[in-house]
């Protein structure tokens, strides 16, 4: 289900005191921070404070229906760690929670990059994902299991 509203978060810097954030909602689908409605509200807030608006963040959410698959408790917190490279050779990390057993090789540690679901994941990332600066992700050469398990504490010897 798509967002019923766009959440707007504006960070203000006052003359005195720390920065603060004001949050409000506007109609869904607005992706321009210079939208007339958003700016009208920001202008009205500016008149009531001794602060200036520095940044605006726009957020939309789409809810997805579905249920998780049961897996062993001690490995459900593991992650599938993928090392990706962008067009400048800069490395990026993607950690996917609760990886399915089928994507691992026989050693249960290394991800099988020829698995069809893994191939689809790599294709989606290289087609759509960028680094934060805007450089496209070009390749994901390797993936492996990253354990996220609590170490067992040894009992005192009596």
């Amino acid at each position, binding site marked *: 289900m798509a967002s019923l509203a766009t959440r707007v978060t504006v960070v203000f810097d*006052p003359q005195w005191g*720390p920065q603060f954030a004001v949050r409000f*909602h506007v*109609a869904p689908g607005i992706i321009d921070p210079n939208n007339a409605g958003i700016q009208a*509200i920001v202008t*009205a807030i500016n008149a009531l404070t001794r602060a*200036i608006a*520095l940044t605006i963040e726009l957020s939309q959410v789409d809810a997805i229906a579905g249920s998780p698959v049961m897996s062993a408790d001690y490995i459900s*917190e593991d992650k599938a760690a993928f090392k990706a490279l962008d067009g400048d050779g800069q490395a990026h990390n993607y950690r996917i929670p609760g990886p399915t057993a089928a994507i691992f090789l026989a050693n249960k540690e290394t991800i099988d990059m020829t698995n069809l679901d893994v191939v689809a994941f790599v294709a989606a990332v290289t*087609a759509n994902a960028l680094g934060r600066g805007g450089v496209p992700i070009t390749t994901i050469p390797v993936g492996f299991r990253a354990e996220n398990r609590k170490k067992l504490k040894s009992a005192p010897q009596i």
Partner: protein
Amino acid sequence: MAFVLEPTAEVLIHCQDYNGARSSVRFFVVNTDADPAAGGPAALAAAVQGISADAVTSVETLLHSVDPLPGSPTDGPYSRGADKGLFEFGSTDGSIVKMQIGAPNETHLEPDHLRYSVSDIAVLALETAMKSFGKTAEGAAITHFQTGYRRRPSRRKGK
């Protein structure tokens, strides 16, 4: 006061495992592809679901922007820099929308220095803007300014 978008939009794919533990995966896509239900964000969510036993519960897109020439904040009487102005608005579905702003301008408070009145021109402008463009989180329209007052947060530590 023109805000400039960052070149990329942040995509957060929220997941939940069968124990109820939550986690998120973060990607960045081009800033024109910010619809969480379509395009790059939807494709990435489907790809993550394909290799994860967790349930992908939602996709969130965040667009960040900055004003490169913000100017300077105005000076004037401050009773206390940590004070807040709290505004409450009514809506068509009956919910109350609350907005808290920092560093309230003293000149817009009533003579008791505690309350705001809709007769004040700045408060009226905020009410007009919220009624024209503001929504509740569920998408209902804002109908009126209900009340506004100064709030002084407690400075007590370790409460």
